[in-house]
């Protein structure tokens, strides 16, 4: 038994991504149609050329959510969800289906309409339960990482807060260069440091935004890629793990890591043949739902040795012009996080960067890109890591 991977067997040949933000004038149907048709056009195909669909969105019940607005002509549509990695899960399923030979051309598409609920962020109703599950917002769950990390590595709280702010500052700086981002302004460090508290020590500016959006990818077997585009990008690795949830259960978990990320990264690097990610990965889109998440991810993904990511943050190693640019498109911080769309939005940046189409954000001659997505909470989550290249 093994996670064998599908290195270089599947190609992404078309992608689409809506602008992310407050789409008061569009419903989820409109966003799906916009992303899907961008992807069709990008791959030069007609809707009927796609043989099967994977739809990532939260809280829906079936593939009809996609097939009805797109008028999909009696084709398989699978609805998937896997917390905040829902869009990534749709991509993984579509890639594996094509790799198996079952379909020639498949679409992974994700969408979420968060702004319509009237609440901040995703609202999911829990199934009937015993009332012991706790009452904790998402920022609070992730902010548990901050004091644990600061204490373990000897950062005083003020210094730690500055490190976190530097991450948000960098992502907004990148997002300012991206026409599809929700927030397209650089934000001064002081504004981030002094933003109103949400879950101490995190302020509003330590949190990703709330947005509507959709993104889509069309995938085929690698040998067919040139039929659709001169510049396909190739799947090197796809890894998805769900953890046993030991964080809130076992004392040896110390809230300075996501073990699920460590496991999926290791698997992905094996699949892709990457031995030193800090050197070999050209750029990464990681799940910066909250600033301490991104800090911990640098270490879990092997970009920084344990306890040193904060130094790499301060030295600018992860900046657009640094040694390993992270979230070159602006990340969840600049885009917001429409759950089902985010994983595919990350892949869209890889698509642009690897094809040299990222404009003012373009990284010099990237070879391997990584996307990472997680859902749940520290110690109890799912994690996805992909590696793609030219």
């Amino acid at each position, binding site marked *: 038994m093994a996670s064998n991977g599908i290195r270089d067997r599947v190609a992404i040949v078309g992608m689409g991504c809506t602008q992310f933000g407050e789409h008061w004038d569009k419903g989820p149907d409109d966003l799906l149609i916009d992303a899907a048709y961008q992807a069709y056009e990008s791959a030069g195909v007609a809707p009927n050329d796609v043989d099967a669909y994977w739809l990532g969105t939260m809280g829906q019940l079936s593939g009809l959510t996609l097939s009805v607005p797109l008028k999909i002509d009696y084709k398989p549509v699978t609805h998937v969800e896997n917390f905040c990695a829902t869009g990534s899960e749709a991509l993984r399923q579509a890639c594996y289906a094509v790799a198996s030979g079952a379909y020639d051309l498949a679409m992974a598409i994700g969408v979420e309409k968060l702004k319509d609920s*009237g609440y901040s962020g995703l609202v999911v109703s829990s199934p009937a339960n015993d*009332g012991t599950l706790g009452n904790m917002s998402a920022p609070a769950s992730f902010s548990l990482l901050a004091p*644990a990390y600061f204490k373990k590595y000897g950062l005083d709280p003020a210094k730690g807060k500055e490190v976190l702010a530097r991450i948000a500052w960098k992502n907004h700086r990148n997002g300012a260069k991206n026409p599809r981002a929700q927030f397209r302004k650089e934000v001064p460090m002081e504004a981030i440091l002094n933003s109103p508290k949400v879950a101490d020590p995190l302020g509003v500016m330590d949190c990703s935004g709330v947005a509507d959006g959709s993104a889509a990818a069309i995938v085929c077997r690698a040998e067919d890629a040139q039929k659709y585009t001169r510049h396909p990008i190739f799947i090197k690795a796809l890894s998805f793990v769900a953890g046993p949830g030991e964080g809130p259960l076992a004392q040896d978990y110390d809230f300075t890591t996501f073990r699920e990320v460590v496991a999926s990264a290791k698997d992905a690097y094996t699949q892709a043949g990457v031995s030193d990610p800090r050197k070999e990965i050209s750029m990464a889109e990681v799940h910066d739902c909250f600033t301490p998440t991104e800090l911990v991810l640098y270490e879990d993904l092997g970009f920084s040795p344990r306890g040193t990511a904060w130094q790499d943050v301060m030295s600018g190693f992860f900046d657009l012009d640094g040694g390993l640019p992270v979230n070159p498109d602006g990340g969840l911080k600049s885009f917001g996080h429409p759950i089902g769309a985010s994983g595919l939005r990350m892949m869209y940046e890889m698509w642009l960067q690897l094809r040299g189409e990222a404009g003012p954000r373009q990284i010099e001659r990237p070879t391997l890109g990584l996307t990472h997505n997680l859902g749940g909470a520290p110690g109890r989550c799912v994690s996805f890591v992909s590696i793609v290249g030219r």
Partner: protein
Amino acid sequence: MTVGIASYGSYVPYRRLKRAAIAEVLGIPAGKGERAVASFDEDSVSMAVEAARDALRAAPGTTVRTLLFATTTPPYAEKLNAALVGAAAQLPLEIRAADLTGSPRVGLTALLQAADAVGANGGSALVAIADCRLAAPEGKAEQAGGDAGVAFVVGEDPIAEIVASASVTREFLDTWRAPGERFAHTWEERFALTQAYGPLLGAAVKRVLEQAQCAPSSLARIVLDAPNPRAADELARGAKIAPEQLADPLALTVGQTGAAHAPLVLASVLAAAKPGDLILVASAGDGADALLLKVTARAASYTQPRSVGRLIESKGDVAYARYLKWREILPTEPPRRPDPDRPAAPPMLRSETWKFGFVGSRCTACGTPQLPPQRICIRCGTRDRMTPHPFADLPAKVATFTLDRLAYSLNPPTVNVVVDFAGGGRFLGEMTDCAPEKVQIGDEVEMTFRRMHSAGGVHNYFWKCRPRR
């Protein structure tokens, strides 16, 4: 057979409301001192649980056969509140349980009923008494009242033996509250004082002293409790009771705690009592009950885990506006989050020992304690080799924490903590009764039974931690 108080426990909530703080906001005269206030996540059941757990800790190995919960403020009008107390205290299935309510004297009545039950059925009886005195702003009761709990294990090897008791009951309109009403009404003061509380309290006290052939001067301590405190003062004068015989009524520190009051003052008296002491306790309300206790030799070796005095000293203030918000007297804008759901009956029944008793599990293959109880061990992966493992009394330390300002709460910020128990096991939940800005990794905490929220008429009880008191 000697029946009496075998052990006791008390509970004064952490929060205090200064009477001057009420008066300042309302522009009315201020009473002296402060009153104890149940926190936003407490009610008469949760306070009774605190006291009951303390009483049971002080009487290890007790076989409880009867459970009585007494209050004038039951969280449920229909549904046995005592059953919740029993579940949280992890009492066995085979007990007789009842709620007693209707009058502030019901606390002392419950103690007497418990003694009868022990006399009739043997074993021990647990009496848990608590009140959360809700009163309309500007009224006297708002300043005078207080919230507290107290509990007694009544059994056959007592620290204070019941020597005599007497009761009188008379229909009388002084204080009343119809179902669905939040605040009580009261009749004119002089009428109740002269026609009811004075005479009735006097009658009960007289009878109990006659029964025991005991002169007032031989009493080491006297607890006199009536809705109008002047009734007790006048009785004391009339009966030639020396002021030093009267117990501190806790008016300046706790307030008048309704059904819990006479029993709570009794608990504070017991802490200082010596073998041979005679203690008289009397409580009025639609009549009166009186009880004469004699402290036994066993009291000399008895130690109480948490005294009333220590609980009074352990405190933090609450602002009047926040108190009004807690009691839902002052409507406030809800957070932009969905309202909490009510818990569902079948999952609550399945997880009864976890939810109400905070009982986790321990793997018998590798010894790892874990909570909530698991079927497959998080450490060694062995299936179904778990044994129940209670965590409610284990000390714990904060591993990491956050202050959640977004979560739905009547008392933001919600302090969310990861706590690690001595000997293993971890819990991610809320911390209460603390100063949020002072929480640190490594803080020592203990578990407390609380009402998490109420929705759809269901009160969702579960456990939180708090700094050690």
